[in-house]
Each structure stands twice: as C-alpha cells, then as structure tokens.
C-alpha cells in the first residue's frame, strides 16, 4: 500500500551500495546528500493522516541540513584539501560491495527475526535501517581518508534516524532537534578537523596519524 515508503527505502539501500562502491569523494558526498533528502521525506509518507505542521518543519530542517548544509560544508573542505578520490582503502571497492550484499542479507534476516511492538508501515524499514547502520560502520572502518569517515558517520546516523522513524510515528520534536544539533556540531567540527589535519600533515590518511605517538 505504501509504495512511496518502499521506494524511499529501496533508494536508501541502493545509495548505501553506491557509497560502498564509489571511489570519488565528490560523488560520495552527493550520494550521501541524496540519502539525507530521501530520509527527510520518509516521515512525511509514514503518517497516514497527512503530515502535521511540526513534521513538515522538521523534514524541511532535516533536508536543509543533510541535503544542503553538510554537502556544502564537505565540498568546501574537499576543495580546500585538494583530494579527489580515495586511492588505497583498507578494503577495496569490489570487496566492499560484496561485504555490502552480505550485510544486506544479515540485516534482512535480523529484520525478520526482530519482534517489534509498533506496527510496521513497511516490512523493509527495519532491514534497510540496519543495513544503513552497518554500511556506515563499514565505511568508518574500511576507508582511510578522514572525509570518508565523516561520511560514514553521517550514514550511520541516517540509519539510526530511519530506525527511529520506524519505531515511533510521532517523535518528540525536542529530541530530534537535539540529535540534529549534535550532528551539525559533529560534522562542523570534523570538517574543520579534516582541514587542519590536512594542513598539518599534507594528507588526511587517518592510519598514519598513529605516528603522532612516537
């Protein structure tokens, strides 16, 4: 019945796979931005009686932040540090995609095993939320560049948000705003940190930062 929700969730899954398989940082940022926009639209389709005013406001805020502000911020950083693509990730792109399909199967299995109290709008919500969370974690682990790790963190948060959207139809606005503020501060700080790491060390490969201890 809820084909719009299903479409958004399938887009979520596909965008995760794209993030796992793309090497160009600019393209990754754009995919993550589209994912944020899709997630912002998700709650509007979840309520059956039409969205309330505060939900519209919140969605607009989310889309503005995840779809415009974060990508803009990261693109600026990208331009400053002059890095075009991730050259040697810890786990290659082909293998990352293969891992992605494994995660997808695991999350579908989890979604089918997890009894949830709330009635689900779509059977896909929990699996795709799990898959997004796992993809985010995987991006943080498998990539070297600090920028991709920031993206992984954003994807992880997207997954948590999708999970939350599934569980409660009306989330308290204050909590959501708090999460968004945290996220904004984190992305901002990380963006600045990436820039400074780059200026200090002339690269943003986090695996080399351990050299600071010696």
């Amino acid at each position, binding site marked *: 019945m809820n*084909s719009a929700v*299903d*479409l958004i969730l*399938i887009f979520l*899954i*596909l965008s995760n*796979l794209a993030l796992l*398989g793309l090497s160009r940082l600019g393209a990754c940022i754009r995919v993550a931005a589209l994912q944020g926009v899709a997630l912002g639209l998700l709650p509007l389709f979840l309520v059956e009686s039409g969205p309330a005013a505060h939900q519209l406001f919140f969605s607009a805020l989310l889309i503005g932040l995840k779809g415009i502000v974060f990508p803009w911020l990261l693109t600026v950083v990208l331009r400053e540090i002059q890095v075009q693509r991730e050259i040697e990730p810890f786990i290659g*792109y*082909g293998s990352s*995609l*293969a891992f*992605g*399909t494994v995660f*997808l*199967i695991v999350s*579908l299995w989890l979604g*089918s095993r997890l009894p949830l109290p709330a009635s689900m709008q*779509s*059977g*896909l919500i929990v*699996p795709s939320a799990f898959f997004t969370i796992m993809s985010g974690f995987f991006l943080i682990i498998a990539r070297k560049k600090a920028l991709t790790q920031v993206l992984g963190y954003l994807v992880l948060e997207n997954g948590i948000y999708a999970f939350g959207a599934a569980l409660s139809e009306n989330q308290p606005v204050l909590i959501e705003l708090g999460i968004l503020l945290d996220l904004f501060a984190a992305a901002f700080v990380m963006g600045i940190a990436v820039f400074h790491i780059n200026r200090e060390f002339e690269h943003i490969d986090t695996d080399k930062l351990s050299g600071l201890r010696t």
Partner: protein
Amino acid sequence: MLILGKLINLLLCLAAAPLLGGIINRTKAFFAGRKGPSVFQPYYDLFKLFQKGAVYSQTAGWVFRAGPVIGLASAAAAALLMPLGGLPAVLAFEGDLIVFVYLFALLRFFLVISALDTGSSFEGMGAAREVTFSALAEPAFLLGLAAVAKYTGHTSLSQIFSSLDITDWPAAGPTLVLVGISTGIVFLSENCRIPVDDPNTHLELTMIHEVMVLDNGGPDFGMILYTAALKLWLLGAVLAGILVPVHTGNVWLDTTAALLFLALLAVLVGVVESSMARLRLLHVPSLLIGAAALSIVALMLVCGGLL
C-alpha cells in the same frame, strides 16, 4: 498456429539477429557525423566470410577448429528456449532458464579454450580477462533471473515471460527495475559492449573479446560473428521480456512491441557507445559486482515477501 508461432520465433531470431549489430553501427555513425554502413552490412560481412577459406596455425589443434562450431551450436540451442513477445519458444521445460544461462557458459568455455589452443600469449590474456569478467557477470544474470522466477513462481523462461505482465509493474516495479538494470549491465558486458569492452578497439591493453578471436579467419570468424549476433538478440529478448511484458492477447501486437524494444535497445547501445568511454579494466569488476548486488537486492525483495 502454435507450431507456426514457434517456427516464426526461431526463424526471426536466426534471420534478424545480425540486424541489431547493423542498427548499433548505424547509430554510432550518426553520432560521429558519418553516413555509416547500411544496417545490412553485418549480413554482407557474414556472406563474405563464409565464402572464404580458413587458415589454421600449425600449433592449433582440433579444439581450435571445434570452438566456433560448438559456440554457434550452443547459441542456436539457446535460441530454442527463448520466447519473444507473443511468440512461444520452441522448447520449454521446468528449469530451462538454468540451461539457457549455461548454454552461454558452454559457448564461452569453448571460445576460451580455442583461444588458449592457438598457443598465443596474446589470446591467452584475452581468455583470462573474459573468464574473470564472466565469472562476475554470471551470478548477476542468474540471480536476476532467479528473482523474476521467484516472483512469477515458474522456472521455465517461456512460463516466466508469459506470466509476467505489464500490470505487474505497479506492484513489482522496484524488483523489475533492479533486475532490468542488472540484466542490462550483464547484457552490455556479455556482448562486449562499451562500458566493459570496446568492440572497435584493437589495442592490446584494452581488448577482451576481440583478442580471443584474432586467429580465427574465414568461415570460423563468420560463425563467431554470427554467434555474437545471436547472443545479442537473445539477451536483448530477455531484457524485452522483463521490461516490456506486453500481453494484449494479440500475438502480432505483442511481438511488434518486443521487436520495437529490441530495435530501441540497439539504438540505446549505440548512444551509450557514442557518448561514453569504456571503463578502466580495474573498475569493471566493481560494475559487475554492483550488478550482482542489485540482483541480490531484487531477489531479497521477492523472497522476503516484502513487496
């Protein structure tokens, strides 16, 4: 009527398959601003090649001579299994989709070992690449077909494509789109088309398919070209069955829709080939694994009963 339909389907495939290559070349010529060869040029080429005599290297054995024959035979056998539009397939039995996929694997296997049999390291390189990429394309294709098979509840190509209908699109749209994209990538990869392989190039660094058939000449090369044309037609027919499953009840209308789709597909391939560069060899596996991932997503959607 049924037998007539089967015969027409088979004859149409055998007779019209080279036309697709002609349409592709014509489209590419149009984009390059040339007049281009006639759409019937592939027929002239085949005719010319079949009139020639064959030359065989002294190092090549019987495998080299058997390769093109077995290749053509398996492609022709695959043509027996594939329905097109309203026309039924000549043969249909439970599980024939696996036979269909593995007839192409047989074709590839003999093409590869006949390339290895020439003893040329150059052809060995092409064979290695072909095997590497097809090992990734095969799961994508098979899993995509499995998703459609699971959705329709049949394992025979004829039954799958006759029970799939245009009215399924609103309900199963996402699945069919995913399978369509994945099969489309496999279609380009298996037919040595541009994002994966460039059919025009003779540059040793980038060749995959062309390099394997360099030593074949005359009728052998003609058979290989004709086999490639049949493969293009048959995989295009799979795409037509998934993407435009028109079943109005009128056989001719349905078949015309499928044929129009095939022509459109050829034009589309020509457009892709004119506007895109081929991928770096290292990036091809990512594309094919991506296609397999899409097929898996589609299969999961169907299996989980989520849609």
